[in-house]
């Protein structure tokens, strides 16, 4: 077997470091010149655009599509969860199904286009919008101030708080009980942010996927899973031996769709759509269709559903 000569030499290494330094300089580490296409986050570009530069919104990130662009293309790309029943999941036939999907289907219908669903993870929702991989995110996206700096939220279609799922044998009924125990969260969720801000001493293990987090809980790798109360209730109802010991933790949040920062055209259209849907009580019907079979009488629809974009 021939031995392969290693291409590494100190000179190559030095060149690599130089290239890296050049990249960093190009990215303007630390410098915050307005108008620099890389330093300006989309948020800044949009607000500062009239004063500084006109080429901004599409430079650093992917470009977004207006309603007319989407209609001309004949399809809208919507980022949804593929593993989070009953909100967004893939059924046995490979079709997307759930509360978020009903909403997405209706948007496609009213836009007169086909819907192309793109599976996303919780932590990748913002970057999928920023890079223009999807036009809209309908992945049970909780509205937060940090997220609102990066994306534009529509008016809400649901409200939510956190919940804590734990084994029935050792139920967690008060958040204080979690001190010194192992807590499971999914990366990039509001549960992670809430625990980091309020209980920084907790021993938290973070997973990328919902299915990984729930597997970990099933395998006894943690004492509790903190997540949206809707998810906790749905999961514990489907998994005997587990209970949602805390059903309302932390501040009540709203859940809304989101578009790329600055895509006002699509945002306005979608907010108007919410008003139309509210007039026909669309989300109550959506609840009956997708959520009621899961929650039964555990959840009152009015505690969860938001009609017309108005809480």
């Amino acid at each position, binding site marked *: *077997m021939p*031995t*392969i*000569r*290693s291409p*590494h*030499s*100190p000179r190559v*290494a030095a060149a*690599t*470091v130089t290239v*890296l330094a050049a*990249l*960093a300089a190009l*990215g*303007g*580490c*630390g410098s*915050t010149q307005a108008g620099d296409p*890389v*330093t300006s986050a989309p948020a800044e570009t949009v607000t500062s655009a009239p004063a500084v530069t006109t080429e901004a919104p599409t430079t650093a990130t992917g470009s977004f599509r207006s309603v007319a662009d989407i209609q001309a293309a004949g399809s809208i790309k919507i980022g949804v969860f593929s593993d989070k029943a009953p909100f967004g999941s893939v059924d046995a036939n490979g079709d997307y199904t759930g509360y978020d999907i009903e909403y997405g289907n209706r948007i496609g219908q009213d836009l007169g286009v086909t819907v192309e669903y793109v599976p996303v993870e*919780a*932590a*990748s929702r*913002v*970057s999928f919008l*920023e890079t223009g991989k999807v036009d809209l995110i309908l992945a049970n996206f909780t509205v937060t101030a*940090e*997220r609102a*700096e*990066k994306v534009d939220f529509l008016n809400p279609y649901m409200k939510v708080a956190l919940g804590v799922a734990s084994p029935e044998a050792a139920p967690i009924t008060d958040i204080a009980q979690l001190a010194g125990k192992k807590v499971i969260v999914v*990366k*990039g969720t509001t549960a*992670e*942010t809430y625990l*980091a801000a309020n209980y920084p001493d907790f021993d938290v*293990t*973070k*997973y*990328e996927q919902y299915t*990984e987090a729930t*597997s*970990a809980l*099933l*395998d*006894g*790798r943690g004492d509790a899973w903190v997540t949206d109360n809707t998810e906790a209730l749905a999961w514990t109802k489907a998994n005997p031996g587990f209970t949602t010991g805390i059903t309302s933790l932390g501040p009540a949040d709203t859940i809304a769709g989101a578009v790329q920062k600055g895509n006002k055209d699509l945002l306005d259209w979608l907010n108007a759509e919410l008003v139309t849907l509210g007039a026909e009580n669309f989300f109550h019907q959506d609840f009956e269709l997708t959520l009621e079979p899961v929650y039964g009488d555990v959840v009152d629809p009015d505690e969860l559903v938001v009609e017309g974009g108005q809480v």
Partner: protein
Amino acid sequence: MELAVFREYLPAYARAALATLGIAALGIVLATAVGLVTAVVQYAQVPVARRVAAVYVELSRNTPLVVQLFFLYYGLPKVGLVWGSGTCAVVGLGFLGGSYMAEAFRSGLDAVEPAQTQSALALGFGPALALRHVVAPQAVALATPAFTANVIFLIKETSVVSIVAYPDLVYVAKDYIGTDYNTAEALFLLVVFYLLIVLPVSLGAAALERRVRRAGFGA
């Protein structure tokens, strides 16, 4: 990109770099041990063990580390064996790396001229002594480039252990991306830290290879 963000993230990245180095080191030690045993078993044609080694090498080389880790972390608990993420990461790296190391050592052993062994035997060495004093020293020199390539490969392979929730560099980077959305800064630091870890190893490996080549025998 913002300098303040880098400053804020540095401590967590430094901790994660140590975690990455830790499992890389343990994984490489385990892989080397597994590789040595496998290579010797195959070289010496030990009856049954040699077949077991062959099956292991095929199984290990033809499945991705991600799949092996998933099996260890999410599969084994179903049969009652719950290993922590660190254990899974090290065992996974050892399982994957063991076969690559075995192939490296075996190719080194095979590359030693048969005349060397025959001469040693003719001079009155027993088979074990011939392996230890004549074949092995030459095989080590011949296998070094493949060995160091495997070491670098295994360090880079640690980048998937975050799927079993091991808090390595990728885990921290993805966490920052998911909570603060400073994607550019988080990924840039990720590149820098991997280079900081792997580049010195690459340079050391290149130096080592130059040394052992000078110490080559015969061929």
